[in-house]
């Protein structure tokens, strides 16, 4: 029942030829509260008591929860993530009831300029939570003086190993779980029985191990070739067994360079095998399938974690999570040229 809460949706991409499938786009909303039920009847004394409580709440707690958003402007989806985060958090606070007249406020800072460091140090004073978007933003808030402010991060490939006092340092990573990868690849390429994948053990060794297990569970063969340098990729392509029906390009900086991508795409073209990648940009270069991140969903997922922190959950309960919103996009023209059958219709109708 791991798939409970996931659903398939499709949309037509910008060029009109690509198809996409979204899975689990709103799973993160399960943690956000809904509106309180209204009581139809009540005594007069109950109404008076309620009004009194409201007035007391207004006087006692009129201050807002304040969130400092530090984002990396060089990341294209940062704006989508921030907007989704703010919208989801405001919605959650609006359902919280009369405890707060001003539920939440936001301050935004960019981390790309050295001059912002001082702003950042001044801005963190008095905030209740820091929302860091990107690795650079997370590194920028690492050295903040107030170590008790919880931090929620997104668009960070490798979650940090450091801790800051007793505060939360948690967030949403970028690595899609191997199980979900394998599942979506099988949906997109149902005829592929074996995949070839290059990886650097120092970067993605654990991920590939998990992928091997997931593939074995789902009946998909996986040939994983270790490399230590990008230069090995073109040469080691020849070592792939002949039954490999597709190449899996994982987000490993040793594997993905300009030349290795060209080598992989050339191999794909010469051997008529599809390339499965992790970013939509490679589809235009010749990749066939891309399992990409749903960035607004990641923003909402981070908002859910922030909401839990504001509600006082202990640090051990709010742990870093993998992204729940994942999109499946395909390039039907490349698939047609390679003679590959797609498991999802280019029109976007899910299987």
């Amino acid at each position, binding site marked *: 029942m791991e798939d409970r809460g996931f659903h398939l949706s499709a949309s037509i991409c910008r060029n009109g030829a690509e198809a996409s499938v979204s899975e689990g786009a709103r799973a993160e909303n399960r943690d956000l509260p809904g509106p309180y039920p209204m009581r139809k009847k009540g005594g007069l004394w109950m109404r008076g008591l309620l009004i009194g409580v409201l007035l007391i709440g207004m006087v006692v707690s009129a201050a807002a929860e304040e969130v400092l958003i530090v984002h990396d402007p060089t990341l294209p989806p940062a704006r989508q993530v921030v907007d989704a985060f703010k919208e989801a958090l405001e919605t959650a606070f609006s359902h919280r009831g009369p405890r707060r007249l001003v539920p939440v406020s936001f301050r935004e800072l960019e981390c790309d300029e050295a001059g912002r460091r001082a702003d950042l140090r001044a801005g963190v004073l008095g905030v209740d939570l820091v929302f860091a978007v990107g690795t650079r933003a997370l590194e920028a808030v690492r050295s903040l003086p107030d170590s008790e402010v919880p931090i929620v991060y997104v668009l960070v*490939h490798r979650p940090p190993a450091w801790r800051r006092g007793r505060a939360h340092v948690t967030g949403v990573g970028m690595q899609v779980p191997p199980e979900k990868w394998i599942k979506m690849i099988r949906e997109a390429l149902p005829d592929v029985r074996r995949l070839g994948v290059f990886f650097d053990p120092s970067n993605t060794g654990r991920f590939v191990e998990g992928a091997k297990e997931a593939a074995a569970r789902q009946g998909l063969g996986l040939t994983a070739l270790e490399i230590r340098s*990008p*230069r090995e990729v073109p*040469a080691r392509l020849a070592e792939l067994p002949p039954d490999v029906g597709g190449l899996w390009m994982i987000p490993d900086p040793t594997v993905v360079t*300009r030349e290795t991508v060209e*080598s992989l795409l050339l191999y794909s073209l010469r051997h008529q095998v599809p390339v499965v990648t992790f970013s939509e*940009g490679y589809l235009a270069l010749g990749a066939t399938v891309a399992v990409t991140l749903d960035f607004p969903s990641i923003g909402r997922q981070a908002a859910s974690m922030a909401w839990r922190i504001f509600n006082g959950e202990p640090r051990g309960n709010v742990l870093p999570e993998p992204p729940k919103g994942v999109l499946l996009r395909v390039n039907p023209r490349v698939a047609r040229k390679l003679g590959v059958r797609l498991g999802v219709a280019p029109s976007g109708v899910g299987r």
Partner: protein
Amino acid sequence: MDAKRRCVFLLSRHFALQTYLYLAATILFATVLLSGTLIHFQQRMLRRQMQDKGTTVVSFLAESLRLGLFSENAKEIRSALLPALKDDDVEWVAVFDPSWRLLQYGRSLPGSPAEGKGQVPAPSPEVRAIVTQPGGIAHHEGAENIIFWKAVRAELSAPTVEGLYFFAGPLGRPASGTVLGYVGVEVSKRALEAGFRAIVVRSVGTGAVFLVLGWCVTFLVVRGASRPLRRLLNEMRRRGIWTEPPVSRGLLADPFYELVRALDRAFVTIDELRVGLEERIRARTAELTEANQRLRDEVRERTRVQDELKQARDELEERVKARTQELETAYKQLAHSEKLNALGTLTASVAHELNNPLTGIRGVLESLEYRGDLPPRETRLVKLAIQECDRIDRLIQNLRDFYRPTTDRTEDLDVNELVESVVLLCTKDLIVRGIEVKTSFAEDLPKVRGVGDQLKQVVLNLIANARDAMPSGGTLRVTTGAGGGWVRIHVEDTGGGIAEKDLEHIFRPFFSTKTAGEGTGLGLSISRGIVKRHGGDIEVVSRVGEGTRCTVSLPVSAPAQDAKPDGASGTVRGTADSG
């Protein structure tokens, strides 16, 4: 004579030859200059094209070698070199590793490209420094070739892992990545030299053709130009302007100096002639101006005389017309007077015939009265009958007086008596027409001197006009008065009056507002003439719808005056007041 002609011939030929040589040399110089410039620029353009080609080839090789150097795959490197080696201008291609160790070398040979490691000149430190910079391309030109160098670069890692996800454009930054190796290309200058030779040949050929054509055209032009020169010299010699043979100091200087001198003399002569001609023209112009002025004066005088003649003719016509009109009026007056004269004679005879029985009747009545035996009532009747007879007698006497031909004899007249006699004549007719007659005569009215019957006619005309102006009845007021040496007779009616537009024409003969057959239009005209002859005046004042008032003013008579009235001294005024 023949010697002189030959001299002219030789002289013109000499001039033509020298001119032709000058022009031919100029054309030759221009051709050489243009051809050299053309060759120079085309050579520069060829060299630039060759450099561009070498740059393009080495850049292409750097891009195509990138994957082979990245994977250190000799086969990939070799296959990347093949397209460049097929170019005829490419001598060899060499690939180096980042430490400038030779990896591959290919030479372009007739047939198929050769492979192996040949003799590749080591790049200089300057070349290495240039190609180490991002995007740098170095070239070294030798005597027979140009060698181009460029680095092969690749991005070996992404700046951040997240950057792998957000890739949206062409992969990596090849101009600034890690150096994978170097590529060198030697491009032969054979094509450049061949192109240069072709340019030289074409330019020289074109220049030669241009030169020959230019010389031919120059020859034709000079020959054509020397013909009129020869004719000019012959003509000069024939006219004696120049007769000397050519001397050594100038080709055509002497004849042309002679020609200039002859032209100077000719211009002097022309100036003299021009001056004399101008004097004659000036004199003739003055004469013509004077004659023109005379003609203008004559024309002006003739025009003036014509205008005067025309004016005189118009005046004459006007006078003839007026005189004709006067004559017609006089004729009509004469005819009317004749008719009145005849009527007067008839009336006098009738009155005379009536007077006899009336005298008898009166005698009888007087006899009856003198008998005294009649009752008083009958006696009164007889007296009444006698009074009526007296009245008839006065009436007849008035008729006879009125219609008696005028005697033109002036006398002192009692205007009241004169007016009363006329009113008496008209009273019966006026009463029958429903017109009430009111008379008012001034007492002690001075006498006027005039012709009585004529003045009666005037008063009768005025009363008749007043009568005709009141067809439905009215009041006729006849009054007399005096003052200021004048005796005035006023005839005033209560008729319809006279329109303003007609008032100024009422004294004009034959002007009448009455219907045709009722009036002659001569009454007022004749009356005005009579009054004017008496030195008097007639004034008419009329108001439309209220009536008309006519006033006859006559001068009071002088004691010794016994002459005919002279109308020349009188004035007649006709005024109207329609308001």
